[in-house]
C-alpha cells in the first residue's frame, strides 16, 4: 500500500509542478517521502522513478500530441536522436533516475537517525 501511495503522491505532485520552479524540484517529494516512510532502498528508488517517470511521460506525450511534434521533431535533429518517441523515453529515464536518486537520499538519511528500534521486530 505504502509503495502505491508513494507512487501516486510523487506522480501527481510531479505532474503539477509549476513552470516557474526549476525542474529539479522533482527530487523534493521523493526525498521527503524517503525520510518519512520506512522501506528498503530498491522500493524507494522504484516508487520515485515510476512516479516522476510516468508523470513526465504523460506531460510530454500530451504536449507532443497537442503540438503535432512541431518542435520536438526539430530538436531531435539537433540532439542527433533518432525519433521523438526515443527522445521522450530518454527524458523519462532522466527524470526517473534523478527522482529515484532523491528518494534514495531520503531513505538513506532516515536510516541514519532512526535507530534499530523497529527493525523488523513487528513482523514477528
Amino acid at each position: 500500500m505504502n509503495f502505491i501511495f508513494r507512487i501516486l503522491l510523487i506522480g501527481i505532485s510531479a505532474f503539477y509542478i509549476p513552470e516557474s520552479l526549476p525542474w529539479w524540484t522533482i527530487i523534493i517529494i521523493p526525498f521527503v517521502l524517503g525520510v518519512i516512510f520506512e522501506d528498503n532502498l530498491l522500493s524507494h528508488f522504484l516508487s520515485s522513478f515510476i512516479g516522476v517517470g510516468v508523470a513526465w511521460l504523460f506531460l510530454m506525450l500530451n504536449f507532443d500530441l497537442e503540438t503535432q511534434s512541431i518542435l520536438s521533431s526539430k530538436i531531435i535533429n539537433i540532439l542527433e536522436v533518432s525519433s521523438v518517441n526515443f527522445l521522450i523515453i530518454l527524458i523519462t529515464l532522466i527524470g526517473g533516475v534523478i527522482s529515484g536518486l532523491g528518494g534514495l537520499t531520503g531513505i538513506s538519511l532516515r536510516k541514519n537517525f532512526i535507530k534499530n528500534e523497529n527493525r523488523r521486530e513487528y513482523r514477528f
Partner: protein
Amino acid sequence: MRKKILFLFFFILTISSVLILNIQFNSIPPIGKFLNPYNGFWKNAEKNNIIAFENINLTGLKGPVTVQFDSLLIPHIFSENDLDLFYTQGYITAFHRLWHMEFQIKAAAGELSEIFGKRAFKRDREQRRKGITYAAKRTLNKSISDKETFELLESYVRGVNDYIESLDYANYPIEYKLLGYKPEKWSLLKTFILMESMSDMLSSRDMDIEDTYLLNTLGKEQYDMLFPEYNKKISPIIPSGTVFNFNPKKERAPNNINFNILPSKTISKPDKDNGSHNFAIGPDKTRDGSVFLASQPDLSLNLPSIWYLVHLNSPSYNSMGASLPGSPGIIIGFNDNVAWGETNATRDVVDWYKIEFKDESRSEYRYGDKWLKTEKVIEEITIKDEEIFYDTVIYTHYGPITYDRNFLEDSTNINFAMRWIAHDESVEYKTFLLLMKAKNIFDVEKALEYFHGPAQNFAYATKFGDIGLTIAGKFPIKWEEQGKFVLDGSNPDHEWKGFIPYEHVLKVKNPKNGYVSSANQHPSEKTYPYYYYSHNYEMYRGRRLNERLEAIDVVELEDVKKVQNDNFSYKAYEALPLILGKLDTTKLSEKEKEIYSSIKRWDYFSNPDDSNTSTFVIWWDKIRKTIWDEFDTMKYSYRKPSSFSTYKLINERESFDYYDILKTKKIESIEDIVNMTFKNTVDSLENWKNENKTSRILWKNFKNTRVNHLLGIKSFSIDNVSVGGDRGIINAASGRHGPSWRMIVKLNKNKKTEAWGVYPGGQSGNPGSFNYFNGIKEWGEGKYSKLLFNNNSDDNNEFVIFNKIFN
C-alpha cells in the same frame, strides 16, 4: 558508519547529477534544464497560432490600445496616442522576434564571443575596430536634440523592455535555451546600433586597399582597362540626358601619392550581392490610372526573416509595411496617400587614411604642419570560457585606426584610419516617422532630407498620381578619384571637401517615360557635376528592369508581379552568343553535342525547372577563372574584373595577354579557353548528375536556394526552395541570398489604397510555431498575399484571429 557513507554517497550523487544536467557543455544545451517538460523546450512548442497571444500583456500604456493579428500574424495596432503606438510596436515585435533582435545587435556590436567563445572572436574584433558602437553612441547623443522623435524611440524601447521583464526561463525564445544565455535589457543605443548595422551591411563594402595594390601592380593604364568606372551600356537610375542646372566648384585633385606598404589582410566585407530593386509606375502607363510602387530588397535569406510586417494606427499615423525588428516605425511601406521603397545606393563612402604618428606613444599624428591628438578607446571583448581580451583602438578625427600593429600582429608600421560616413551623427529614424505620415510628394521629399545613410534610392508614389525617386544620403564632395585608393592622412588636401547639399542630390520626379526605377546600378551619367564612384555598380538587373518597364503598357497588378519575379538572365543573353560563337562544334563528343544543342536553343530564362542555366553558370564561371588566373598569384586575389568587364574584353579583343594560362607552356587564345572550359563544364555537369543520382539537372536543384536559421541549425532552416532567378537577375534568388521582401502598392485617387506582399519566412521567429516557415513556398512561386489595411479596427474584425483591447 556504513549508513553515513551510503547517505553521503546518494546525497552527492543526486546533487552532482542535477548540477551536471544544468550545465552547458560547449554546444550541448544543459540537458535537464533544456529537456524537462515544465519549462524546457516543450514550452516553446505552440499548438496553434493563437495560443501564444495569451502572453501579451501591455502594462505601460497611457490610453486604450487595440491589438489585432490577421491570419499571417501581422499585428494591427490601433492606439489613441503615438507614445502608446510605438510602445506597443516594441512590445509586439519583441514578442515575435526577441532573440533575433538581440542577436543581430550583438553581431553588429562585436559581442558574439560572449555566447560562442573563441570562434566568434575574429569577427567581433573586426566589428569593434570598425567603430560600430562608437558611431551609434554619437547618433544617440545627437538624437536627444530632436525631442519628438526621441520620445517615440524611448517609448519603443520601454515596450521591448516590458516584454523582456514579463519573461522567465519557461518562455525565453528557444535559442536562449539552446545556447544557455539570457535576454538583456534593450536600450536606445541598441536601436541605434541596428541602424549602424544596416550601414555596415549596405555601405561598408570598399576595395580601396585592394585597388591601391592593383594600381601599384598593374599600372594606371591596365588598372583602368580592367576596372573601368563607366561604360557605354549603363542604364542609369536618373534617366540619360537629364540636364543638371547647377555647377559646383570643381575640386582639384592634389598630387596623388601611392602607398606601397599595405596591410597583409583586410577585414571581412559584406556580401557584394546585397542590393535590391524598386520602381514606381505613373498613372499614364496603367490600365485604370492608378499608380504602382514596387519594392524588393535583396539580402541574405535568413530565418527569422530580417523583416517584420506591422500596421500602425493612431490619430497621426496609419501606415503599414516592413519594419526592422529593433527599429521603431516602418522602413519599406505605405500609408493611405503615399508608398515608398528603398534600394541600396552604392557609393564609395568608406575611405582609408594613412596615419603618421609622432612617436611610439601614438598619442599624436601629423596633420599638415600640426600634430593632432589621438583618442584611445579600450575595447573589452568578453570571451566565453576564456579571459577577457582588451583591444586598444586609436581614434583620429577621421575615425578609428582599424589597421595597426595590434590588429595585424606584424612589426610593419602600417596605420590606416577609416573614414566612413556611418560614423557621423544622424537622425535617420526621423525620415521614416515622417514618411509614415507623408500626404504628398512634397512631404516625402522633405522627409528624405533627414536621411544620411546607408544611402538609398527611395522610389515613391502618391495617391495623386505623382511618382519620384531620390538618391538620399549624405555624400562627400570629392575630387576625381578621391578615396578610390588609400589617402594620405597627414595632408589636409586629402580630406573630404564637405557634403553635397540636399538640393543637388540626384532626383527625378514624374519623368516623361512614366516610370522611375533603380537596381543598384550607376546613379547617373557622367554629366552629374559631382564625382561619384563605386567598384560594385550592378550591370544587369538595372538594364533588364528599365527595358521591361519601357516595354509594358496598360499595366495591371499581374504585370507588376511578373516584373518582380522576372527570371531573364541578361548576363547570359549578352555573353552566351559570344562564347557559343567561339566554340568549335566539329570536335564535340556525343555528350557535348547534346549539351550544346540544348543550350543553343535556350531562351535565357532561369526558371526553376530549366536545365540550361546550370550549364551557362558553370561555363561562364570557368571562363572567368581561367582568364583571370593571373590574379590568383596576387595578394588580394578576390578582387578580379567583373563579369561585365570580362564579357566586354572578350568581345573587343581578339588577342589579350590575360588569355594565356599561366601554368601551361603554350600561349592560349580565347578560343582555346572557350573550348577547353566547355569540355570541363560538360564533365562537371556529368559529375553533378552522378553525385545527385539524377538524369536531368534542374536549375532550382543545382543552385539550391536555402533559407537558413541565423545559427545555421539545420532543422530550423529550409533547403532547396523551388524558386527561379539568380544573382544579376531581377528575381535575385541565388543560393543564400535573394528577395527578402516583395511589396506592391496600388494607389488611386478614387479608391482605397491596396497592397500585396510576401517574404520568405514567418512573422513568428519561434521554430516551435506553425507560422515559422510561413510564406517560403508562396515566395518561391511568386505568389503574394493581399495585405489587410483599414483605418479602423472594426473593419478588420472579420479578418483577424486575435482582437483585444488593452488598457
